[in-house]
């Protein structure tokens, strides 16, 4: 069985999964790996990979899997090849910018129609006592601004719409 795993903002990796006796066989390109699940509960996956034991904590957010392994966090999107899953979109720039935390729009630094480059600061939201920049995810234009300076915003509220050039 084939599986596409997309590490967040990284190229998609194709894996093939199979079983052999009581083990899983994971094939990645020309390399073949053996995995065994040792323990599992709702958020814990203890497994052996090529003879080494790992303890991963995981949580699913829709199509995404968030993994904590040896302290580090990893975010993946997984899907079957050919499945037109929404997860595929996660590797493309999302043109609709929403507030991911509640706060106050401190400063809007661009105007509608402005040309932007990936990483440009579009506006500053004051939250958790800090100025938090809202960044352009790719090159393109600001097609619409939906908030004004001084406005309070809630999580998920529309901030701006961008017209990103296809990569």
């Amino acid at each position, binding site marked *: *069985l*084939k*599986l596409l*795993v997309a590490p*967040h903002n990284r190229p998609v990796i194709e*894996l093939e*999964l199979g*079983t052999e006796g*009581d*083990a*899983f066989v*994971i094939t*990645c390109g020309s*390399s073949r*790996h053996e*995995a*065994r*699940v040792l*323990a*599992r509960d709702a*958020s814990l*996956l203890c*497994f052996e*990979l*090529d003879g080494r034991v*790992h303890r*991963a*904590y*995981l*949580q*699913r957010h829709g199509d995404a*899997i*968030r*993994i*904590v*392994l040896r*302290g*580090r*966090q*990893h975010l*993946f999107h*997984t899907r*079957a090849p050919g*499945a037109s899953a929404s*997860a595929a979109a996660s590797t493309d720039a999302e043109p609709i910018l929403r507030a*991911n*935390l*509640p706060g106050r729009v*401190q*400063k809007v630094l661009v105007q509608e129609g402005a040309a932007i480059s990936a990483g440009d600061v579009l506006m500053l939201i*004051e*939250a*958790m*006592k*800090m*100025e*938090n*920049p809202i*960044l352009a995810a790719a090159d393109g234009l600001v097609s619409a601004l939906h908030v004004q300076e001084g406005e309070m915003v809630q*999580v998920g509220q529309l901030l701006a719409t961008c017209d990103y050039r296809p990569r």
Partner: protein
Amino acid sequence: MFSTLLVANRGEIAVRILRACRELDIRSVAVYSDADRASLHVSLADMAVHLGPSDPRQSYLDGDRLLDAARRAGAEAIHPGYGFLAENAAFARAVAAAGLTFVGPSPEAIESMGDKLGARRTAASLGIPIVPGSEPTGDSAALLGEGRRVGAPLLVKAAGGGGGRGMRRVSELADLPAALEAASREALAAFGDARVYLERALDRPRHIEVQVLADHHGNVVHLHERECSLQRRFQKIVEEAPAFNLRDDIRVALCSAATRAAQSIGYRGAGSVEFLVSGDKWFFLEMNTRLQVEHPVTEMVSGFDLVRAQIEIAAGQPLTIRQEDLAVRGHAIEARVCAEDPAAGFAPSPGDVSRFLAPAGPGVRCDAGLVSGARVPAEYDSLIAKVIAHACDRRSALARLRRALEETVVLGVSTNIGFLLDLLSDPAVVAGTADTQLIERRLAAAPSEEAHQGLAPELAAAALCAAQTPRHGVRADPTAAANSASPWLTLRGWRAGGGAN
């Protein structure tokens, strides 16, 4: 000693102070906003009083509500922690006027050091070197002139602030107007005071601070130094004690200057005097008239309980420890775990923490403000836990801290733990040669791609996890998966807790 003490704070520092109260057999009172109703600190107290809405201005920053809570709970003393009202002289005065004890220095001492200009004047009058700079003002034209006089590179700083808020670094004078605007805007939002001032930015300085402790009976001691050079946007991230490879004559000079500064303003309680060290030069930076976030590293190497000492001093007890008894044992390093996403420019990441596992083992301390199932509110600071490692020497303490961070599990919100682990493996950090600009330089450099030998275990974990669809339960039926529109793959024969068949 007090019979009842109110902790006017939240999060990990409230937890820290409430633990001290329990050990001192003092009845403790927690306060909480709407967002903190279910927070850990509330349940660790003997009594809890609701303050008001989640907005800190209507809860933890509202002195009247705090005094009302203290009155209702019958508290005799108020411990402000750090942040919020900890360095607010008006609050300290109001506490005293209400007939209660403020666990901290006098309002006059807070004022003399809280005003950065006054602090610089005090230091200069004692013959302590200060960084060249300007007077604080809200007049940006005057500051532009001062900027030309002092010369770039410059730091723009908030007159009423600390903790890195309202601070900007300016490499060229052309960038000064924009930096002045941004800094004074942030200063106004954070401290209600838009005044800023300029200081010359030193070349790759180290940030070193000295912990002092003074009682009501004229005794002043220092508990040696801490190094806090690892900072991002002027926020400390990793702190250690003692400072590594610091010249002995400089160490002695800093400790002596800190003690003299505390004596000169009639300081009492715990405080920290901060310095910048650049080559063989050192300068007074400021004094923090409160407990510091990074106080645990001093506690680990001194074996001395600073919070207990603060409370005992506030109760009028004399210091029983003598300077010569305060030795440094081994090395301690602290890392601040924050709910933020380094991949998204360190944007705060509030949310529900479904699972939190604190590290343990020899020499490891974890001061956390949360438990599994807790929420990290968006209204407050993103610091969720401090992981501290203590060992016989710096190298062992670093290895221990990395081990402890690898054991730490925070599921549900993004954290900076991966960033901290990278930082603690940085050659300059390992060698102990870091300066305050190290992190900005590293972040500006291209990110290094992690090289994996074989299959990365996290990829395998994702694949094993994706192989089971939650929609069909863990004992999945492959035919059901094939017929469903779900893109999830289902492997045959996987069974929870056992081998596949």
